[in-house]
């Protein structure tokens, strides 16, 4: 099969798998909100809108690959039938484009399955066309030597490449000594060798089973290889890819099985087409399946060059993905792709030769040498000594990271199975499980405030870290306006969010408390305590209605939507404040007070990546992540101008200004970026600064006390003159005036996946149980993620596991959620 046809088939398959993925992203509640609705990936939105037209391109490409079938009388009918079916579906799509109108319901899942029909049909055409022409021979162990050699070359090349990339890119930032790095890489090599060895042993087993059962027929061996490939792909898709986007349960298994089945069958179709045209009969099922991915051309030097090019692309993709990844998912998948392509290329370097056979014992021994060395070191050495190094290596080096996850999560998965299952069951609760909204009522006398109502401005900077602001970190010099703002405001030194990531953090600010893990309980209005107060007190609401607030706010009441012409990912504080200034200018003196809320995305990791992590020329921020600090400097200037504007209009001392974040972020600590499933101290600590008018400064406040973003709503109640009720654990309390005693631990949760935390010891320690990666950790909050983690002793684990169970049950009780 010419290379052009391989490329064409890859494009065709890629198109339909992307279509299927789009369906799954719409089907999963949180990706629907935060990827699709938020326009997180602009190219994906474009893809959905152009889908009906791109479909024709994809099918045209597929039909072009069937050119020889159209010519041959014996296969013309089947090829024509495929083309006709494809055209019919294309016409239907033109009249009724599916993707742009997909809703978050079961139909989106159904469409994701239907999207796999074209590659499935095409692979069936391939199989039907070549079935009669295939020539199968006998298999033989004489090939084992070259398979083992190809595996060894693949191991060496992949290990060296990924280790070198790690050494150059990540190691300097991880504060590893040369000996620690060498130790880590030695573990990495042995683990890679163990998996490569095991893969070879599985191959021997498959071949021996085939020979044992059916007398060494190559066709039987090929069948077993296909089944094995499907199983491996199913497990990878189900446990690595889909769990990372919170697609769980039966739907995940079904989707993974469909993907595995169709993908392997499509590869098989392409492989069989090539084999059918060859003069020699097929002798190796393994080589046959890998054939479409390998380079059977030119000299040995060219083949090696091809392998190097493949690796370079895989590493480049990893580097691009590393700054905006989803729990390292893309990096790990690119590593997998790298392994497959490099192994395919290595097979081309070591063609099947008659090595004489009879060396099975020798080969199994050689393949198991690395496994034995790894096991011996684990048993006789003290692997816990290397654990902190390996954790860092696993995050920054995806090839090792994937294997480390596979190897390391087993015991935790067993010992903490009950908790992990509980967390998974109660996270991303599907909409099929209806949760009736409760009435969250901090005050029963709304609308009767005796005080003059202040204007309220809430600015929530998405992903803002407190240690990048001068009021919280004296080393920061690039936020002078915030420093000035903080001098005359209440700076809460010990503020946290209950939720990592925006999905539930933003709703919790409006609700004034935690909620069951569903995106979202609707109608949200009965629970929206902040909005209730604004409506009761006749505020003029001006809100940047992002993809989350669209689902939460009461749009039947008057609301001025700021940034209405932008997707959420493009929200910019400077332009939002500019719009706000215009609204304030246009306001009459006698009008109701103003309420403004905006959540700009200037420093969100996806935005920074989209902008190429650029830094203005000449700008330097030593000791800080420069693209982030540079954007923050701009935000600071705009915020300062807005405060100056309020002062010039004599509105500043009539306003409550809240400056905070929905959550923090990881900016390379332990090699990690972003906040998706991370509940590290840097993610859950937030800045919180509140300016209140002089006439409201009589209320006592303890700025050193523990505060949460859920306290903002009840605090505003108090500043307006209400006496907000204490609603219990998980709900906020006013930061002003006397506070009820709180218990000594607090539940934290990732918005997107089953990752739960417990803040304890007066917020000095943070325990995190992670049912995405099947690990648990214990942090010293003040020292952060760069310091070595605290040991998770049995006491720490037992105590906090009980708290997570109790905290979730308590929350569900408050919201009348059935257990």
């Amino acid at each position, binding site marked *: 099969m010419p290379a052009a046809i391989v490329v064409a088939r890859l494009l065709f398959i890629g198109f339909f798998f992307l279509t299927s993925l789009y369906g799954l992203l719409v089907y999963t509640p949180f990706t629907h909100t935060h990827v699709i609705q938020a326009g997180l990936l602009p190219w994906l939105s474009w893809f959905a809108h152009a889908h009906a037209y791109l479909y024709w391109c994809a099918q045209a490409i597929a039909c072009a690959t069937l050119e020889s079938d159209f010519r041959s009388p014996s296969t013309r009918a089947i090829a024509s039938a495929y083309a006709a079916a494809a055209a019919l579906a294309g016409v239907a799509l033109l009249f009724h484009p599916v993707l742009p109108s997909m809703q978050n319901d079961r139909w989106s899942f159904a469409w994701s399955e239907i999207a796999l029909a074209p590659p499935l049909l095409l692979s069936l055409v391939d199989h039907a066309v070549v079935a009669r022409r295939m*020539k*199968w*021979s*006998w298999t*033989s*162990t*004489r090939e084992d030597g070259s398979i083992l050699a190809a595996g060894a070359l693949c191991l060496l090349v992949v290990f060296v490449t990924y280790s070198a990339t790690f050494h150059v890119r990540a190691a300097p930032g991880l504060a590893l000594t040369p000996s620690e790095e060498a130790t880590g890489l030695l573990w990495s090599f042995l*683990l890679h060798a*163990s*998996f490569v*060895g*095991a893969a070879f*042993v*599985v191959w*021997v*087993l498959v*071949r*021996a*089973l085939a*020979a*044992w059962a059916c*007398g*060494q*027929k190559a066709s039987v061996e090929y069948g077993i290889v296909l089944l094995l490939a499907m199983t491996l792909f199913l497990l990878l898709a189900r446990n690595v890819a889909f769990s990372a986007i919170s697609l769980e349960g039966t739907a995940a298994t079904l989707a993974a099985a469909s993907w595995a089945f169709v993908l392997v069958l499509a590869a098989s179709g392409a492989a069989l087409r090539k084999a059918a045209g060859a003069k020699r*009969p097929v002798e190796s099922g393994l080589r046959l399946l890998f054939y479409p991915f390998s380079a059977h051309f030119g000299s040995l030097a060219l083949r090696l060059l091809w392998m190097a090019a493949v690796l370079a692309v895989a590493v480049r993709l990893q580097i691009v993905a590393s700054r905006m990844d989803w729990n390292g998912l893309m990096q790990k998948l690119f590593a997998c792709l790298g392994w497959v392509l490099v192994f395919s290329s290595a097979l081309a370097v070591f063609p099947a030769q*008659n090595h*004489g*056979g*009879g060396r*099975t*014992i020798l080969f*199994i021994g050689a*393949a*198991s040498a690395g*496994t*034995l060395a*790894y*096991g011996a070191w*684990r*048993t006789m050495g*003290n*692997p*816990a*000594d290397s*654990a902190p190094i390996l954790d860092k290596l696993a995050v920054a080096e995806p090839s090792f990271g994937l294997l480390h996850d596979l*190897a390391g999560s*087993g*015991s935790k998965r067993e010992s903490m199975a009950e908790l992990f299952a509980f967390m998974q069951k109660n996270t991303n609760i599907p909409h099929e499980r209806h949760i009736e909204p409760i009435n969250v009522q901090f005050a029963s006398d709304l609308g009767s405030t005796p005080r003059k109502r202040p204007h309220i401005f809430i600015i929530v900077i998405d992903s803002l870290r407190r240690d990048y602001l001068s009021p919280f970190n004296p080393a920061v010099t690039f936020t002078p306006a915030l420093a000035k703002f903080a001098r005359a405001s209440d700076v809460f030194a010990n503020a946290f969010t209950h939720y990592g990531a925006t999905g539930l953090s933003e709703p919790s600010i409006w609700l004034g408390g935690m909620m069951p893990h569903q995106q979202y309980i609707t109608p949200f209005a009965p629970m929206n305590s902040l909005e209730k107060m604004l409506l009761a007190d006749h505020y003029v609401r001006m809100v940047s209605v992002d993809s989350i607030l669209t689902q939460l706010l009461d749009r039947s009441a008057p609301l001025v939507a700021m940034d209405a012409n932008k997707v959420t990912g493009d929200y910019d504080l400077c332009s939002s404040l500019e719009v706000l200034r215009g609204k304030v200018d246009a306001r009459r003196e006698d009008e109701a007070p103003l309420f403004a809320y905006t959540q700009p995305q200037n420093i969100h990791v996806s935005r920074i990546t989209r902008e190429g992590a650029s830094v203005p020329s000449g700008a330097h921020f030593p000791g800080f992540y420069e693209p982030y600090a540079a954007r923050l400097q701009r935000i600071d200037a705009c915020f300062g101008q807005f405060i100056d504007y309020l002062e010039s209009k004599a509105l500043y001392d009539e306003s409550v200004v809240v400056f905070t974040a929905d959550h923090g972020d990881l900016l390379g600590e332990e090699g990690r970026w972003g906040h998706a499933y991370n509940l590290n101290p840097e993610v859950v600590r937030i800045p919180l600064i509140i300016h209140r008018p002089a006439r409201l400064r009589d209320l006592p406040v303890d700025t050193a006390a523990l505060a949460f973003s859920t306290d903002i709503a009840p605090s505003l109640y108090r500043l307006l003159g209400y006496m907000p009720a204490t609603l219990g654990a998980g709900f906020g309390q006013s930061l002003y005036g006397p506070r009820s005693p709180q218990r000594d631990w607090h539940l934290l949760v990732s918005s997107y996946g089953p990752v739960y935390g417990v803040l304890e010891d007066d917020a000095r320690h943070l325990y995190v149980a992670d049912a995405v990666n099947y690990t648990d950790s214990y942090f010293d909050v003040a020292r952060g993620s760069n310091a070595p983690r605290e040991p998770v002793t049995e006491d720490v684990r037992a105590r906090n596991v009980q708290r997570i169970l109790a905290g979730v049950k308590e929350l569900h009780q408050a919201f009348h959620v059935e257990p």
Partner: protein
Amino acid sequence: MDASFPEVESVPPSIRVLLAALGLLLFRWSVFGAVSTATTAEIAAQNELKRLIDQSQTALRTNRYQEALLPLEELTRLQPKNHVYWWQRAIVLRALRRPDDEANALEQFVKLSPLPDEACPRLAFTYRELGKPREELDAFERCARFDPNDSEMAFYLGHAYEMGGQVDRALGVYTEALKHNINADVEAGVGRMLLRKGKPTEAYRAVTPVLARNPNNSDALLVAGLALTRQGKTREAKALLERGALCHDGSDFRYALGVIAEIEGKSGDALSHYDAALRFDPQNQDAKRRRARLATSRN
């Protein structure tokens, strides 16, 4: 398909399956097998702890307390939050008669143990031994807080108040304790306090149930005897006190009998009772004073 069968492998498929299965078992052991999760430093620390525990236990088994103390001191230094080591250290310090250090060890135990009441009332008595009444009282108060339903602790606390002359507080503690449990010592305590508050009738009524349950309860007999004496019922009082003296002869009974003998005008009997009281307790000031007065009047 070729008719020939080009197999050159000398190992039959069944053996290859077996070998491959062994290879996979090796992989499972190597990659997923359970291994120690302790670091080298933790293992060394554990070994050191084990050595110290063995050393202290061996010495304790043969009552070589001085020898046991050194490893226990090291254990409490290495594991300052382990209450068990503090408890053992307290045991050794008691045996070595070092009450000051024993009290410190018991204080640590109380702070760390999930069952701090195990150190009660020993901690308070250690302070008593050291002549630190304020600390003693504080220890009794803490002990009573550990388990408010424990009438024995309530009795100790009440008694400590009693010894300190805090009659109302002692009466309060005794009365509260009786709401939870019936306890003869506490009931007698109530009687004593009522006596001291000048309420002999109520005092007698307080100890009557005790005597109904146990006619030979010496504390109740003493309270009842004194109460009846103060009510002028010397004959009944004398009978109860004599029965008390028969059960548990002591300075208080002899003194009370001496007083009754004086009332009855039997100065000789009174003198001999006072002498007996002073033999039991040479510090009994009341007996001393009365005996001196009686001896002077007889002379």
